[in-house]
């Protein structure tokens, strides 16, 4: 009934509103919160991966100078503090106490907390706590954990099996019976350490019965909910603030033991409390990512047509079940395995297992990079087997553009997609046609050159609440937004999303600006404070913020706009259909010289003495948006590598990607998300791996051993995009936070295997490190000589 929203700011490279404070050092991160009288927590952590706690002696620690309190798991349990929240229906849920009471289940499990006047004093005293452990047999490998006789990590459950998750479609037996070609791969998606640059931290104060808790979190509202339930505080008396948060990538997508502990200590000690993780501590105590091992079999015809896919996978959950781990390994994984392809028959089973390792949870991409990696490696293996160009195998199996909406064999519905143009553009950007010349030139240098493709579809916009429920997830997948226009016309957007680098302050103000006909500069976006929020916020993860939270903002802005128009129509004595909202003015179509300012309307809404009959005063709107479907971004990435023939070292020489995330609100921000995502995916392909020994000791225990990519490890990127709007939401946006990570890992791995394929090498596990490649070359050379 009113004029459609214009797109003056949507689509523009609006400079970031977040930057001024972050480039001057004014941003407030959790560890920057220092309050008078503050005390500091240091945690004593188990050196054993699995051991019974016989006795804890805290006497010496209590005598250390500056010590305020020392607390064991039993002490904490006695106060009524509950296990770290997590309960997943139909899954075998571990009882995870904030501090271990009876036994430790991974190296790094907390056994005592020391509180002291300074950080140094707390750490010194923590060193003085002595614990008598009875070491128990350890299981590190998830497959072994499911074998009979394996040590049981959580004894009360009687098994290490967390879940068995099957998804089936079509006639898989027939597919394999009819297949002209079958290929099989054993695939390891190695364990990764997220390494958000900001270590975790929690600060809290308890004043006048109200707990304020600052935390490095992606989900402040869940922290508020769980802390209030756990500490027995009314939810309105718990204020959780996620101030500047220095990256998350899933590692801050938990309600962590330290949040409960610091909250508890602030409440009981009556003094402000802070805990800041040291990086090596974080390597043990902050969730890890990936760690899926499985087998894929592909049935196909000789012409490259895929007939069926069978997968058996075991996912390592670590010692305790985390908030999203079972979701990542199941829903976000199994459903998206078919990717952009028509798969007539499908049979996947994922089992989750407890082990004596740091808990594993969502890490950028969460299930989808694992899925696309498995599939894209198998497609390349098939192409190799039948001697067909990998690009053409992909094209042959793409779901055609006229087939949408498309019901996948895994049981979800892709609303939209057009995969070939992204492939074509990526091929052109990467000079795919000219590659063989470059391969030959490298060979002349004694090197191996390879090119690798990955085409993906991801599942974003988490999530329709009913789908969540059907898939076994207890909580809804909506997001909230509130827009408040003050009498003066100042506009505040409150969002339930909780950005930590994603630039929501900028993008949300662009969305609201277009709806309200004002400038993004006149809009303030506030987030990450449960006392300032629209209500329940679900938070920022899974590339959900824009397609769910951004749409909530859009819808709230549309509601406000509607009221602005009604008031303006009343004041201008015009019909609402004729009212134009534009450039900070409101006027009747064709009569811009008789415009009212946006602020005249907002003032009128509060003066409330000349409003349309029956209209409520005020000018604000709150929306809880529950998406009707997921969104399905897609794209093709192409990597080119050159391998040093003598050392096996990989140089990533070229990287091209064409992605489709639907409408781009701010292309500058979209590109930034892709760059970072691609770099993280490259990290998995070439560099990163968390290594445990058989005793459950983390050997890659610091940044000295774990290879976080540097600027020298990552190339410049060539990016392009197509725009296929989703019909699922009114802006046609799909999400882009994880696309880069999902696309890049298989592209790089495929490039390395392609480089080595002339030697007869069919597969190597990630990370594709120099020695691993050198050994493969040696072995291949040896075999050829024989």
């Amino acid at each position, binding site marked *: 009934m009113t004029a459609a929203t214009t797109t003056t700011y949507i689509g523009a490279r609006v400079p970031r509103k977040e930057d001024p404070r972050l480039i001057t050092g004014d941003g407030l991160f959790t560890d920057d919160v220092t309050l008078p009288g503050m005390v500091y927590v240091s945690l004593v952590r188990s050196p054993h991966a699995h051991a019974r706690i016989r006795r804890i002696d805290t006497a010496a620690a209590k005598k250390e100078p500056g010590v305020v309190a020392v607390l064991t798991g039993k002490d904490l349990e006695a106060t009524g503090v509950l296990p770290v929240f997590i309960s997943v229906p139909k899954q075998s849920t571990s009882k995870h106490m904030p501090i271990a009471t009876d036994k430790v289940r991974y190296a790094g499990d907390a056994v005592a907390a020391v509180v002291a006047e300074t950080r140094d004093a707390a750490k010194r005293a923590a060193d003085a706590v002595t614990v008598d452990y009875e070491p128990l047999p350890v299981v590190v490998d998830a497959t072994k954990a499911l074998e009979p006789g394996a040590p049981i990590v959580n004894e009360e459950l009687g098994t290490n099996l967390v879940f068995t998750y099957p998804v089936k479609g079509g006639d898989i037996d027939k597919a394999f019976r009819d297949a002209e070609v079958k290929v099989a791969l054993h695939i390891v998606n190695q364990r990764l350490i997220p390494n958000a640059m900001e270590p975790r931290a929690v600060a809290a104060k308890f004043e006048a019965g109200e707990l304020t808790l600052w935390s490095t979190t992606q989900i402040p509202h869940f922290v508020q909910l769980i802390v209030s339930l756990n500490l027995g505080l009314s939810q309105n008396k718990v204020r959780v603030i996620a101030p500047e948060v220095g990256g998350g990538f899933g590692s801050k997508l938990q309600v962590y033991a330290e949040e409960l502990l610091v909250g508890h200590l602030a409440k009981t000690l009556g003094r402000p409390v802070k805990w800041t993780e040291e*990086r090596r501590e974080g390597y043990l105590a902050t969730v890890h990512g990936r760690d899926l091992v499985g087998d894929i079999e592909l049935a196909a015809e000789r012409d490259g047509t895929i007939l069926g896919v069978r997968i058996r996978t075991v996912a390592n959950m670590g010692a305790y079940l985390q908030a999203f781990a079972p979701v990542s390994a199941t829903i976000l994984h199994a459903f998206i395995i078919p990717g952009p392809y028509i798969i007539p028959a499908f049979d996947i089973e994922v089992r989750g297992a407890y082990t004596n390792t740091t808990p594993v949870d969502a890490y950028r991409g969460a299930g989808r990079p694992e899925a696309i990696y498995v599939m894209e490696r198998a497609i390349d293996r098939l192409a190799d087997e039948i001697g067909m160009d990998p690009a053409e195998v992909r094209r042959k199996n793409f779901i055609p553009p006229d087939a949408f909406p498309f019901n996948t064999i895994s049981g979800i519905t892709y609303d939209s997609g057009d995969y070939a143009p992204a492939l074509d553009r990526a091929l052109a950007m990467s000079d795919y046609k000219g590659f063989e010349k470059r391969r030959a030139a490298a060979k002349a240098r004694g090197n191996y050159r390879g090119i690798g493709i990955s085409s993906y579809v991801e599942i974003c916009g988490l999530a329709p609440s009913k789908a969540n429920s059907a898939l076994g997830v207890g909580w809804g997948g909506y997001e909230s937004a509130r827009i408040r226009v003050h009498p003066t016309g100042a506009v505040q957007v409150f969002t339930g999303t909780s950005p930590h680098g994603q630039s929501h302050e900028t993008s949300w103000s662009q969305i609201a600006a277009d709806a309200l006909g004002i400038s993004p500069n006149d809009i303030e976006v506030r987030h990450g404070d449960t006392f300032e929020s629209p209500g329940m916020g679900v938070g920022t993860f899974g590339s959900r913020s824009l397609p769910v939270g951004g749409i909530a903002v859009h819808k709230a802005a549309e509601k406000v706009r509607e009221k602005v128009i009604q008031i303006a129509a009343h004041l201008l004595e015009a019909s609402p259909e004729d009212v134009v909202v534009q450039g900070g003015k409101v006027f009747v179509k064709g009569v811009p010289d008789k415009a009212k300012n946006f602020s005249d309307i907002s003032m009128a809404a509060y003066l409330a003495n000349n409003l349309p009959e029956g209209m409520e005063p005020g000018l604000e709107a709150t929306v809880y948006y529950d998406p009707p479907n997921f969104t399905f971004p897609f794209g093709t990435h192409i990597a080119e590598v050159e391998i040093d023939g003598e050392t096996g070292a990989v140089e990533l020489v070229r990287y091209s990607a064409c992605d489709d995330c639907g409408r781009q609100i701010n292309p500058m921000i979209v590109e930034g998300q892709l*760059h*970072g995502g691609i770099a993280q995916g490259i990290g998995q392909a070439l560099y990163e791996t968390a290594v445990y020994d058989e005793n459950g000791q983390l050997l890659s225990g610091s940044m000295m051993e774990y290879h976080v990519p540097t600027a020298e490890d990552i190339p410049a990127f060539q990016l392009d995009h197509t725009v296929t709007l989703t019909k699922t939401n009114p802006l046609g946006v799909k999400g882009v936070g994880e696309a880069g990570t999902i696309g890049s890992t298989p592209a790089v791995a495929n490039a390395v295997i392609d480089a080595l394929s002339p030697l007869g090498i069919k597969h190597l596990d990630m990370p594709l490190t120099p020695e691993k490649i050198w050994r493969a070359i040696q072995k291949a050379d040896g075999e050829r000589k024989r």
Partner: protein
Amino acid sequence: MPQSITVTVNGTKQTKDVEPTHLLVELLRETLGLTGTHVGCDTSQCGACTVLVDGRATKSCTILAVQTDGAEVVTVEGLARNGELHPIQRAFAQEHALQCGFCTPGLMITAVDFLARNPSPSDTEIRHAIEGNLCRCTGYHNIVNAIRSAAGMMAATAQPKLAAEVKR
């Protein structure tokens, strides 16, 4: 036992009693409240804590506060002068070289030192110069662009250098 040191931080001379065990970053963050300098690791890898010490990019987690007695230190808070942003700050914003912003202060400081000695670097040189600064958000692409762009801005305007940049 605390020792008295005098250190010039962002142009202001400060005399403070510090514990010998305290690192420069602890002096900056905890004693002086300059929390723009961040701590991202404990093994001198990440570079988030980089500040200028006598003009040289230095990991403030790997230098004792007492070792800076008599030195001149510049932190991210000291990059802007008289309300005017340093070109590296403008370039980081313009090129979208930061997302979460945690590594940004250290990266900008490293770049300031680097550009003072190499005013028109190649991209390869830029990447080499910042290998001691980890960023997990940006994939470095736009950071390289920003440093190149700042070099251009600095050449065009011949900015007066920070005192500590030219010392040595």
